């Protein structure tokens, strides 16, 4: 195999993997749309307990939104340093992304513990079950993304950027952007419309 043929073959494998990952993200969108539909149907089923108007703190949710949005942006900036072959810059931007994502998860855990301590757990009403399932599933995705980021970045720090790690980081970037798109709808449909 000549060098250029090997390169073309490599590129083909690379784009197939990324396409396969894209298809996975699309199926994940369908999972989230089921949870959104469930939430929208059940949001008024408070069973005498607190409603979304009583519980949600919009300023808190806004800060979460800004954190996740900024981390989506910085993950893109990290991948922009790939053509420059600047591994230090790549690792630094992913570190920023990780910190922002971890702060987001920490805020969400704070909110959840707050609700449960006040006696508003998922067992209370259909509304709260749907809320914890939808927002919790998103939070679980973000946490998985953080774990995945560590697993991918540590080898890059030790051995530098390889074609394989580049392929995986491209998938991670797509996953991270996708989680922010899902959050737009959680912020709008759950939090903003919840207090109207």
């Amino acid at each position: 195999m000549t060098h250029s043929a090997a390169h073309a073959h490599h590129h083909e494998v690379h784009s197939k993997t990324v396409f396969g990952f894209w298809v996975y993200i699309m199926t994940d969108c369908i999972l989230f749309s089921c949870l959104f539909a469930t939430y929208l149907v059940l949001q008024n089923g408070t069973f005498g307990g607190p409603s979304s108007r009583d519980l949600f703190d919009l300023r808190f949710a806004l800060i979460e939104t800004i954190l996740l949005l900024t981390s989506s942006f910085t993950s893109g900036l990290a991948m922009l340093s790939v053509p420059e072959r600047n591994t230090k810059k790549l690792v630094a931007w992913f570190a920023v992304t990780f910190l922002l994502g971890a702060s987001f998860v920490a805020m969400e855990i704070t909110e959840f513990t707050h609700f449960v301590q006040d006696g508003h757990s998922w067992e209370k009403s259909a509304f709260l079950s749907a809320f914890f399932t939808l927002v919790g599933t998103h939070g679980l995705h973000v946490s998985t993304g953080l774990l995945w980021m560590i697993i991918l970045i540590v080898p890059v720090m030790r051995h530098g950027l390889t074609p394989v790690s580049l392929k995986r980081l491209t998938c991670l970037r797509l996953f991270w952007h996708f989680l922010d798109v899902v959050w737009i709808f959680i912020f709008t449909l759950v939090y903003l419309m919840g207090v109207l």
Partner: protein
Amino acid sequence: MSKAASEHGTLKSYWLGFILSIGLTLAAYWAVVGKLIAGKILIGTLLALALAQTVVQLVLFLHLGQESKPRWNLLVFLFMLSVLLILVFGSLWIMYHLNYNMMPTE
């Protein structure tokens, strides 16, 4: 645009996407907190702002529709979108009518 640039975007497209997303998020927040509009107009505004931000992020962050032909990513996306719309609006439609028809009569 080189192959690498089309795959990972450009610095300009990322900044544009970031600023637009922040702007649309703050606009939606102020629309609710500022209490300038209410009712159906407010809900319509919020949905429009969310959809606008989704389009911004799909194009500028996820680079949807910028691949070369055949556009498989876009095709799978459109299929997912049709499933999503049927699922969400179908559920809301059915459950709304179910609630309405099963209301206790006096």
